[in-house]
């Protein structure tokens, strides 16, 4: 009996020692995840890769995993995308979303910076991506403060750069953002790097593509770029047009002139179009984007008008912005061109276009999309936290993609806001507060 008691005491002491030792072994002051227990390939850094497969499918579709390092970070990010949030977390998320700076209430010492070239009040996609980054940050006890900036698509690159500089001065520990002005942000990003602040861009927001003048190198000049392999995405768009149109005129559209995202996929789309397809707006050269809409609603109708006026028989479009395509359809009405015999390849998946598609019930009008990608901001936060914990982060966190054909199921008439991406991992309870009025 005495022996059993001694064994019991030893066992308890061993458990206590193991529990205490766990913290000490965490490299570099590893974040202890709030809501996720370390398991899988990143368990040494307190991250779980046991993501809910349903959420993976929702965000990405039935994709083949990307390289192991990227895929593990993606899984770890989605593992934190809790859908059943308590009211206190929801309230805190809304507070942070509506403020330039907020205290998460955890007492953590890490300060997260979020730098958006767009903004919550100018674009739904930006608003949701910002919220997803906040929700992800709230799963880390170590993050005690979130500081957010937004440039509201200001055409002056200095505004975007100054947002980064403000975050540096504010003493953030890392910055997640989307660099709308591309290489024009290079100096500010390098200043962040020099200050020891990791910068992570998401949504394939390269600070200049590798062969662009002045481009920075992820992994060297900044921590990493999260996003799809842009050339693969461009090839996927081309395949949709090749298969769906066969012969005829097609057009491609992009965002801000020369931005890395559009340039990256457009180059490969142009190269992969079948010989039977006539691209009505080829780029001037390989360093130029074409069909520049700036993703800016007032600019979009004019671009469609310019193309459709001369080429009313366009049978296919490739564009990364579904809501922009929805705006473009107004031009079809204005010009009296029927929406039929049309194939559209898109990256994002805003619901209003899909519901409009369902309403039209036109069998020769087909849309294919990849994923809205809002959740990539979550991946950015987790990649940065892993880096702070000492993990090796690949220069590119490659997000796999698959093209999905729009069906009636893709229109959710009860969606809280029609322009919110269907693949967003922001819970409806949060979206309701953001967009429910």
């Amino acid at each position, binding site marked *: 009996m005495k022996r059993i008691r001694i064994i019991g005491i030893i066992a308890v002491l061993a458990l206590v020692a193991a529990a205490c030792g766990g913290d000490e072994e965490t490299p570099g002051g590893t974040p202890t995840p709030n809501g996720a227990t370390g398991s899988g390939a990143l368990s040494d850094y307190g991250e779980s890769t046991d993501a809910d497969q349903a959420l993976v499918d929702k965000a990405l579709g039935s994709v083949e995993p990307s390289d192991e390092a990227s895929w593990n970070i993606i899984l770890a990010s989605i593992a934190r995308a809790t859908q059943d949030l308590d009211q206190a977390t929801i309230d805190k998320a809304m507070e942070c979303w509506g403020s330039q700076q907020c205290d998460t209430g955890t007492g953590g010492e890490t300060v997260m910076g979020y730098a958006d070239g767009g903004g919550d009040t*100018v674009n739904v996609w930006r608003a949701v991506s910002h919220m997803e980054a906040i929700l992800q940050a709230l799963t880390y006890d170590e993050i005690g403060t979130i500081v957010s900036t937004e440039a509201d698509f200001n055409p002056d690159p200095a505004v975007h750069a100054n947002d980064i500089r403000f975050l540096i001065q504010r003493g953030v520990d890392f910055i997640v953002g989307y660099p709308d002005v591309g290489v024009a942000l290079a100096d500010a990003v390098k200043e962040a790097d020099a200050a020891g602040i990791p910068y992570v861009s998401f949504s394939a927001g390269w600070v200049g593509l590798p062969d662009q003048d002045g481009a920075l190198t992820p992994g060297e000049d900044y921590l990493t770029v999260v996003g799809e392999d842009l050339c693969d995405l461009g090839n996927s768009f081309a395949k949709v047009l090749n298969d769906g149109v066969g012969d005829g005129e097609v057009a491609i559209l992009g965002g801000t002139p020369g931005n890395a995202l559009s340039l990256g996929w457009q180059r490969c789309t142009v190269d992969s179009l079948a010989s039977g397809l006539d691209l009505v707006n080829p780029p001037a050269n390989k360093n130029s984007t074409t069909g520049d809409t700036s993703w800016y609603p007032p600019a979009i109708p004019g671009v469609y*008008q310019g193309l459709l*006026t001369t080429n009313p028989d366009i049978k296919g479009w490739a564009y990364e912005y579904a809501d922009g395509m929805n705006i473009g359809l107004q031009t079809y009405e*204005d010009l009296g061109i029927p929406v039929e015999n049309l194939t559209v390849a898109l990256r994002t998946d805003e619901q209003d276009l899909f519901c409009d598609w369902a309403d039209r019930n036109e069998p020769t009008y087909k849309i294919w999309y990849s994923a809205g990608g809002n959740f990539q901001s979550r991946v950015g936060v987790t990649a940065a936290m892993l880096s702070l914990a000492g993990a090796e982060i690949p220069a590119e966190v490659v997000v796999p993609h698959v093209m999905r054909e729009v069906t009636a199921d893709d229109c959710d008439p009860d969606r809280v*806001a029609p322009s919110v991406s269907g693949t967003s991992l922001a819970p409806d309870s949060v979206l309701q507060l953001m967009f429910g*009025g």
Partner: protein
Amino acid sequence: MTTTKAPSAALTSFVVGSRYMPVYIALLLLVAVALIWAPATLSGVALRAVAPYGAVLGIAALGQMLVIMTGGIDLSVPGTMSLAAVITVGVGDGSNELIWVAIATAVAAAAAVGLVNGILIGGLKLNGLIITLAVGLIVVGVVNRYGSTFPVQSPVPTGLSDWTSARVLGISPILWIGVGLTILLIVGLRYTSVGRRFQAVGANPVASHVVGVRVTVNQILAYVVAAVFYAIAGVALAGLLRTPGVAVGSTYLLGPIAAVVIGGASLTGGLASPLSTFAAALFLTGLNQMLRTMGLPTALQFVVFGVVIIGGMLVSGDRIVRAVEQLIRERKPDRSQTPTLAGSTGGRAWKEEGM
């Protein structure tokens, strides 16, 4: 002693009118170029599609014209247009029953912005360029703040968007509104005492003050009425775009000014023509559309657009008047003492003329 002969009425009209000729010549050139390189832009369907956007720019330009006639300039146009647009969304709240309340609120708010501009510039004699820039920035801040109180990319009431996409006699109602406002200004400036006094203030504020015209009131009035025009343009643009957003007016900073100047007005104040200004706005919109249709890269579009504006300025307004005067002098040397119509006050004409 040399006798100064006053020019005949016909000659005066010809010389004054000549300042507005370049825009119509430019329009003809645009049509000619389009016929050769982008004939599709001249199809009825294409023109109908682009007309409402031209009208929006035209309405904003008419407001800017009133300010420029007083020798001022208004850089608060983008903010004021955005303000009107977001109020239409926010107050309209997606309800057709609230459309008129929303429009009235938008116009009233814009008029308040104009009143602030007018008091600071006309009343306190502060620099118009700086004041309107500053007020515009404040308004943009207010718009962003107000825009965050309702869901981003919220739509205007469907009644408004349906109306803007409708056709009246085959043409967008926004174009008809633009035409109506143009006629209103032509009549008001040319045939009413208020309009003539307003022009006199623009041409020569000192002389106007001496003869008892209330210069300050006229200057304030210019900014208020101009802001109302911006509001109308903002509401119309919101209807066209359906989900306008808080930055909807941001591309309307320089376009209205370019239209006024290409339309023959002098930036130093004085004469301007509503008809030529509206025509210049249509020209700029048409040019923009043609450049897109021709498939020019975005960078080249900006370059060509800028070059054309510079070219327009080189051959419009005071320069053309002086050129015509010079031509007349050379042809009629005995009338070399004819008083200059461009005037010695930086282009302010001595004769009131609205057209």
